[in-house]
């Protein structure tokens, strides 16, 4: 009797394993009939702005009053439903810090007073070689063909590997529910849920409808945006005419944000 029970269990478990394996093989081969039907098709809108490699140049010389900073930050945070949370579990897409904090590798105590005392704008660098994309276990953060590093807030599992990977501290995590901390919700942009990571998107949603990023628009010409591959783009022109630096060049990520100091 013992023997027959054992045989029954053997056969039963093998059959279950076989059924499971079939499903896995189907997915691996991409032969699940539903998969093709579920995959949508994406096409750029007629007015979408396109580039081979989007990049940003921030001319810090043009930021002279606190109002210059707050205007661009407010423009970004208000349309993207970025909550204002006090303390060290804060969320920020675009913010300011000192020269030493922004360019720790380039620190020199005898820099000109102006450069040393100025506040610098920080945001996601949309790296050519982004460590956050490399480490993400679910492809919730990915790099688009035009160089923008974006996130799928609905796929993110909140493991925060990307935050450990980012050398620029550009990513924020929703430790709690962000919605009570949003002053006025913009229904055109998804508000996030607790437990996911977020960051600047280079306003990919605005580029798709032919608008420049919100901070660029609000900056009165202090922030330039354009195609790094196009020699006539505003970013290439500015980089041609001025000495520029990028944050932490030694880590090899090739940031897409350039600073004119």
């Amino acid at each position, binding site marked *: 009797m013992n023997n027959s029970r054992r045989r029954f269990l053997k056969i039963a478990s093998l059959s279950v394993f076989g059924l499971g394996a079939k499903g896995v093989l189907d997915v691996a081969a991409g032969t699940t009939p539903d998969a093709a039907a579920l995959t949508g098709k994406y096409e750029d809108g007629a007015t979408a702005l396109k580039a081979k490699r989007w990049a940003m140049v921030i001319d810090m010389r043009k930021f002279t009053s606190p109002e210059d900073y707050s205007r661009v930050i407010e423009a970004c945070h208000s349309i993207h439903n970025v909550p204002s949370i006090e*303390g*060290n*579990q*804060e*969320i920020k897409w675009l913010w300011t*810090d000192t020269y*030493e*904090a*922004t360019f*720790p590798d380039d620190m020199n105590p005898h820099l000109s007073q102006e450069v040393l005392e100025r506040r610098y704008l920080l945001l996601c660098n949309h790296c050519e070689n982004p*460590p956050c994309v*490399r*480490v*993400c*276990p*679910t*492809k*919730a953060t990915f790099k688009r063909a035009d160089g923008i590093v974006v996130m799928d807030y609905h*796929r*993110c*599992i*909140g*493991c*925060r*590997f990307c*935050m*450990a*990977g*980012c*050398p*620029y*501290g550009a990513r*924020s*995590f*929703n*430790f*709690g*529910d962000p919605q009570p901390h949003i002053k006025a919700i913009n229904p055109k942009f998804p508000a996030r*849920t*607790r*437990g*996911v*990571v977020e960051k600047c998107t280079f306003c990919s949603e605005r580029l798709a409808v032919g608008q420049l990023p919100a901070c660029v628009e609000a900056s009165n010409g202090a922030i330039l945006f354009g195609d790094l591959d196009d020699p006539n783009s505003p970013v290439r022109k500015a980089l041609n005419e001025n000495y520029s630096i990028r944050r*932490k060049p030694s*880590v*090899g*990520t090739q940031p897409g944000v350039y600073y004119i100091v």
Partner: protein
Amino acid sequence: MVEKLLKGSPAYYIWLLFLGSVVGLGGFTYLFQLKYGLAITGMSRDVSWGLYISQFTYLVGVAASAVMLVLPAYFHHYKQFKKMIILGEFMAISAVLMCMLFIVVDMGQPQRMLNVILHPTPNSVMFYDMMVLMGYLFINLLVGWVTLEAERHDVEPPKWIKFFIYLSVIWAFSIHTVTAFLYAGLPGRHYWLTAIMAARFLSSAFCSGPAILLLLVFVLRRLTGFNPGREAVQTLTKIITYAMCINVFFYLLEVFTAFYSGMPGHQHPLVFLFAGHGGHSYWVNGWMWTAVVFAFLSLALLIPPQIRDNEKVLPWALVMLVIASWIDKGLGLLIGGFTPNPFEGITVYAPSVPEILIALGIYAFGLLVLSLLWKIAIEVKKEAGTF
């Protein structure tokens, strides 16, 4: 063999009840975390991993350490370990389960965890970590169960299991190497960006894991009379001693590179861990110095053979070793990796009370699994006369 769990002394049931209630307390606290998010932990934007991930890292080491019994027993036919081997394998099972739970409680969106399988991403080390942990759990369950079943029937284990035993040796090295790669491949974290990370992890695992095993076996001996054999204890202690020497040596290599090169990025985390920042000291400094003192004291007690073989002193040396290695890997590793932050600033991390309760709940769960598995093993051994 599961029926062995049902018969036990009142003390056995009280112990299970106690562990169950600690698990319940942790589980209850976790409900709050599910409701309010990780906001109830001490983690922050700058220190975005904390106690959970560091416990995961430490326990991967404990899981991998079973190989220190399996390798001598099966590669070198060192018979003395055969008696204890099942206890090591069962401890690995309990450690891997704790690892998995620590990963789950650290997730912001645990209900989405299958995304790791639904959208497999071979460029992410976490993908491999998941696979090697699952694999290691499976191998240890299989090997542990099959060999114990054979012991019960007083027969040799089936030949095919040898394949899985050899596989488990390689696999043990892989789980901790992959775990080290989670850290060692990140460009902006100076404390982790070191080629010696995997080697450090393995050396720390191979001293702390067997030390925990030996301590638990001493408890088992007192409770049940199970005798692991004097020679086995002495050999395992030697392995622990060598691994701890290598562990301390590797850490000092890091200190040399950081300070002789004068590279600020490499120095800052070490300075922060041991001396604080800008003349200000932090709670972690005292812990790190405790680790240093305990590490050297444990070596002082383990290296001379006449002290090492004294079973009155040995447990104390092992306890100090475990505390030192836990502070290094279960506390300092994560804090040093995130402090200073990418802006060269200091954000202080300390685990919150709910975070500690959840972690204790997981440890209690691990201990519960271990108690049950060891109960089975001990009862089988009693019956088979291999006690």
